[in-house]
Structures are given as C-alpha cells and as structure tokens.
C-alpha cells in the first residue's frame, strides 16, 4: 500500500494532508508571490539579501529555541543572554582582545548562561517557563548592573574594525550574518538528524520517563540543550553588537517571542518531541519577509504587530486542526 502512494505522480499527492503538512512553505511562497505583485522593490537581490540579514539574528536564536522546545522546554532568557554576551564581547573588543579569542569566550559565556537555566530545569525540577522567566529577569539585571545601563562601545581599534565585519561585512556578495545563519542551520540539522544526541533530544521531549528508562542521561541532555540555546543567543548578540559597534544593555528585549513564533510557525510542537529544523528556517523567513513586506507597503508599525499576530494565530489554528 505504501508503494502505491510513493508511485503516484506529484500532482496526485496534493491533497488536504499534503497542504497542511507543507503549509508553512506554501505560506512563505504565497507571501513572496503576493508582495512581489504589490511592490516592485520587493523581489530585488538587494532587498532579498537585506531580508536575509535582518532575519539572521532571529533565525539563529530560533535554532537554539527549537532544540530546547524539542525537549519539551522553553527558553525565555535568550534576549537577556544576547544582551549580556553582547556586553561581554564588546568589553573584550574594547580591551583590544583579538576577535579569535573574544568570540569563543562570548559563545562559551552564552552556553554557560544557558546551562544555568538548564540546571534549574533539569536538576531543580522547575518548570521551564518559570525557570527561564527567572533567568531572563536575572540576566537582564546583571547586564544592567554590569553596563551601568549604558551602551558598551567596541572602540576604534583595528580589532574593533575586524569585529564589525561580522555584522556588516560580505563574503561572495552575501552578508556575513547570513553565512553564519546558514552554518548554524546546517550544524543543527546535522546534530538533530545524524547524531545520537539529536535522537536523545527527540526522545526526552517525546516521553521523558521512557527516555530515562532507556538509559538516556535525561538531565545532561536537557542542560546541553539549554547550553546550545544560550550559545546561539550569544552568537546573535555578537552579530547585533558588531553591527552597531556597541552593545546595548536593552538589546534583545522581546526576541524570545519572535524566536518562539518562528519555531511554532515551523510546525514544531510546544509539547516537545516533534518538529524539524527546516521548519524553523521557514518560520523565521516568514516573519522576516512579513516584516519587510509590511514596511515596503507602508503599513505602520502598530498595524504590523497586529498583522504578525494574525499570521501566527492562523498557523497555530491550522496546526490544531491537523491534530483533531
């Protein structure tokens, strides 16, 4: 029976299930199609690269968020981790520490900050929402104390110039943040589909007690997931800081919601254990394209929020319909 399904020509497979299964991709393409009719400036190479660059920060955070959500958790602290890691990297660059040293330090700091949430969730048995609500507030406070509420400039050294390249530079005509985003997605795809750890992520999110009885070190897997999420937020913080040549203590506020929206639009279940990283990429792109389109069409930023919320609501409703 399964053979007859695969042997069908492509157009015959387009039924209701196929449409729901691929709804986010369809949504993305219809969005591109409609907006390119409405605005001649939309479908230009410059604008597309611009969109990709604007999407990259949210997309990179969303990768970490996907991994955490797959373990049936959530990480609200990503925005605070972004700000604190940004402040750390800006301080280091300001002290003329080489980029090749400053970057790993900031990424490891992000991983450590994420791991704090992970430890509270795994060892403290605190619900992820509460635990990361706490770390979100805590780390934002630490950032404020550390920066005294003022931006941290990266200075005007050669080091600072080469650091700025991470946010503003191009390789082969494509912005550096877009390259970073691509690398992160390929890495996450490999991790989730081709390593033991990836399988364990799905197992822990699917049924934690079954995972434990299967000999999986559930706590370690969870802590690692939050650590990865933290280092992704740190990478996003590096990009944001490099782009502005300074770290803002209020950077990343509200970013957790955009990241969660990208994950959910991509079809990953908030209950854990179900979802694909490709979906998250599509989800992040939908949000990015939508933002850009609404700007090009001169929709006021107030209405943009309403439009974005409507799209997400629609996607989630379709998802629950599928389950029913």
């Amino acid at each position, binding site marked *: *029976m*399964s053979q007859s399904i695969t042997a069908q020509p492509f157009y015959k497979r387009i039924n209701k299930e196929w449409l729901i299964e691929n709804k986010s991709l369809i949504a993305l393409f219809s969005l591109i199609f409609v907006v390119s009719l409405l605005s001649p400036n939309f479908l230009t190479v410059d604008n597309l690269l611009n969109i990709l660059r604007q999407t990259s920060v949210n997309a990179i955070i969303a990768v970490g968020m996907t991994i955490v959500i797959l373990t049936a958790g959530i990480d609200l602290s990503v925005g605070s981790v972004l700000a604190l890691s940004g402040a750390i990297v800006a301080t280091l660059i300001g002290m003329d520490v080489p980029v090749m040293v400053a970057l790993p330090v900031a990424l490891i700091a992000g991983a450590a900050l994420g791991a704090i949430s992970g430890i509270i969730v795994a060892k403290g048995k605190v619900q992820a929402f509460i635990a990361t609500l706490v770390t979100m507030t805590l780390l934002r406070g630490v950032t404020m104390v550390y920066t005294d509420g003022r931006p941290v400039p990266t200075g005007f050294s050669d080091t600072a110039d080469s650091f700025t390249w991470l946010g503003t530079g191009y390789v082969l005509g494509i912005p550096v943040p877009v390259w970073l985003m691509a690398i992160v997605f390929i890495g996450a795809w490999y991790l989730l589909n*081709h*390593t*033991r*750890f990836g*399988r*364990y992520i*799905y*197992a822990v999110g*699917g*049924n934690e*007690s*079954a*995972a*434990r*009885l*299967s*000999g*999986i*070190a559930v706590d370690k897997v969870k802590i690692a997931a939050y650590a990865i999420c933290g280092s992704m937020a740190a990478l996003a913080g590096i990009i944001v800081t490099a782009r502005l040549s300074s770290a803002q203590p209020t950077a990343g506020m509200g970013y957790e919601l955009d990241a969660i929206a990208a994950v959910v639009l991509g079809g990953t279940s908030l209950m854990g*254990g*179900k979802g694909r990283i490709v979906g998250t990429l599509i989800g992040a792109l939908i949000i990015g394209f939508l933002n850009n389109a609404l700007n090009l069409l001169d929709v006021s930023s107030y209405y943009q929020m309403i439009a974005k919320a409507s799209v997400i609501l629609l996607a989630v409703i379709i998802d629950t319909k599928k389950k029913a």
Partner: protein
Amino acid sequence: MTQAILQLQAIEKSFPGVKALDKASLNVYPGKVMALMGENGAGKSTLMKVLTGIYNLDAGQIVYQGKVRSFDGPRDSQTAGISIIHQELNLLPELTIAENIFLGREITSRFGRILWDEMNAQAAALLSRLSVSHTPQTRVGSLSLGEQQMVEIAKAISFDSKVIIMDEPTDALTDIETQSLFKVINELRDQGCGIVYISHRMQEIFTICDAVTVLRDGGFIHECAISDIDEDQLIERMVGRKLADQYPRIAITHQGSRLAVKQLSGPGVANVSFNLNQGEILGFSGLMGAGRTELMKMIFGAEAKTQGQLSLNGCDINISSPQQALTAGIAYISEDRKGDGLLLDLSVKENMSICALAKLSSGLQLRHNDEMAEVDRFIDAFNIKTPSRDARIGNLSGGNQQKVSIAKGLMTLPQVLILDEPTRGVDVGAKKEIYDLINRFKAQGMSIILVSSDMPELLGMSDRILVMHQGQISGEFDAAKANQETILACAVGKTLHKDIA
C-alpha cells in the same frame, strides 16, 4: 435466549485505507454477561465507538430497547442507559469520588449552587452498593486502580444504565480486586443489567460470562453460550486457526548463578535477596503494590536503593542509573508501554534502537545503514507487523508495540532481561509469539525475570516463582510443583513456603 436489549446488526465502518468493521454484530441480553472476544485489531473498540456515537456507522443499524437508535456521543448514549468503562479510566484524580460521579451533572439548587450534602449522600449510597469503603469526599487520585474502577462503575450505575460495557476491566487489577469486581458484575446481572465484557483473559471469560461473541477482522464470527465452547475452540475462532500449546516450556540445565541480589531495600522494597541462574526464567508474582515493579526498577537503577548489593557473574556491580545497568548487561522492559515504555511519536526504528545508539554510531555520527539493518533484522526475527520501520509506533497494535519494546532491550545484548508484564493488553496470537521469543532467549542462555499478574502465564513459563508481599519475598516455588492457590495465599501474606519447600 431472552429478547436482546441491544442489538448491533451488520455494522460496517471504513477508515481511509482500512475496513475496520465488516458486518460486525453483537447482541446484549438483560441479565446476562456477554463476552466480546477477538484479537487486537478485530474491531472490538471500533464497534464500541460506533455504538456510543464517537464514530458514525457506514451501514447496519443499532437497535436499542426495540427501536432503531443512533447516538451523538458518549454523553447521549449514557443518558439513554448505555455506559462504557474504558481500559484507560476517565477520572479526574484531583476531584473527589462524588465530584467524579456527578461530573457535568452536579446536583444543584435552582440558582446553580451545588447541593453538596445531597450529592455526597447519593454517591455514598452508590459506593455502599458496590461495597467500597471510602467516603464520597475521598480524592480519586488517592485510590488504587481497582477502587478507581469501582468509581467508574458507580458512575455507570448512577446513570441507571441498562447496558454496561467493560473494556479490559481487570487488566490493572489485582486478583483480590478482580474478585470484588466479579461480585459487582454478578449483582448487576441479577438486577437485570446487560453487560458486555471485553477481555483477553480466558479464565475470566469462563468464570464470569454467560455467552460469548467472537469478532475477527472486523466481522462477526460466532455467538454461543459459554457452556457450549471450550478455551481451545474459542481461541481457534478468534485467530482463525489452531494454536499449538500455549506455554511451550523448554527444559534447560542451569549453569550457575548469573545475578545475585542481596538484601536490597528502598522505597516499597524491604530486604529482598534472590538468585537468578543462567538460562533461567524466574517468575515474580504478587498483588498490585507488592513492590515488584519497584524492585525491578531498583535493580535497573531507575529508582534509588537505600541498601543492598548486586553481583553479576560473581562480580559485585554498582548500579545507580539505567545507563549503568544497560552497560552492565541488564535490560528492563517497562510494564507501562504508554507511560514510560515507548516514545509514541517516534518511529519503530527510533524506538527500537534508542538504547543501543552508542553501538550504532561512530563518534558523534549515527551509522544509519547499520541502524536500519539491525532494526530490520529484529522486525523480521520478531515477526513485527508494521508497514515500515519508519511507521509511527503509536499506530501499531499492542502486541507489536510490545515486541518492539522487547527488541529495544535485546539490542543492547543483555545477560539479564527483566520483563514487567510483557503480555498485558496483548492478544492471544501475539502472546504466543512473545512466549516463543522468551523461550528462544532462554535457550540462548539469557537469564530472564518475568513479572506477571497472569497466573497461568507465570506458572506456564517460569522455572521458579518468587512471590512478593508488602515489599518482601513471601514465598518461593518450583513452578512445576506450584499452583495458583498456594501462590495467591503467599501473595496475600500467608507465609507457607516452608511447608512447600
């Protein structure tokens, strides 16, 4: 026979790709207990869902009290007097017994205020009718599974049900609880209730039922009085072929000790010592809550022990997590497939290989081809019926899910395999296949601990049987000499193993 109160006539129901019911019929008579038998997938549950209106029927009709009826859903059929008690209980653990019984139809004053005294009094009357000793204000979550079942029955009676359907009611019950359930069933029968009793346990069918209806592949096969059929004929009708001996015990000479447990204690387990030999099947009997599962999880490192020592092949081992147990060569297959046994959203392949991924990867990288080959080998060897290795395991039948569970443990190449209720919720045909598998492992020299509440299975498969009572071992029997009565006596706490041994 008397006039049927409920008749399901030539019911047909199709789902995309499958014809789940193909002219299935069932008659329920007042004052009689009708057994509904069939292998998993024979259409029993689907038929019940069509009856209560969860599914619409494609063809056929439902005649209830002489009229053709159709129901919009469980609430509708329940109001009409047809109640179902599902295998998975539908109770809210945080509410009281009375609140559960009257959920959604609380007794209220004209202004919507709940009349607690009235409601509790009615609930108390129902409970005393079922000789449940709890007050109506008891929280349902604090009751044992058997008592919760009684609450479900109380709920069914409170609807003044004329037909009560019980789907595998004794699966989670201890023998004592089963006895009191039977008492209640007998009373209901005497009061003229028509009862449909769905179970895989042959013994119970012959104890409690008056007549039997057999379904196979969604169709009606046979209806007769229980006195007109014997166990073998019944199984034959269910599976459509003759079954060989159900428990083909094989004789193996045991060569020395494999696992020694010395004075193991912890929550729910007190001072347990025993020996497991190579190539031996050691059965564990006991009532629910006797501490069998706790003991097994402690050996497996999934629950903390307060004291005690394990040794494997003569060497002391220290196990404090399932990882360590699996590495040492001890595998545990959970009694609760849906709860902590399987990853229901993942595929057959992913479930089967989850314990053995370390062996199936080089460094970080999974060796997908090796994994697939290994999984296919087990699907083949265990005769697992699945559309493909990538099918979602939640879509497989109970027996096939269980085979995947066992394969999962075996992929780690264990020396000791602990099977906790391996045939719970598994149909007759698949049971036999699982027994054959267990015997095959035994012949290869594997040591097996078989925890089971199914007495004939325990007596038929084990070499030795240990009985637990309140966390302690209360008896040891040579399976060939043991019988159900003595084991049960031990399980309820009579220490008479000295007379036997």
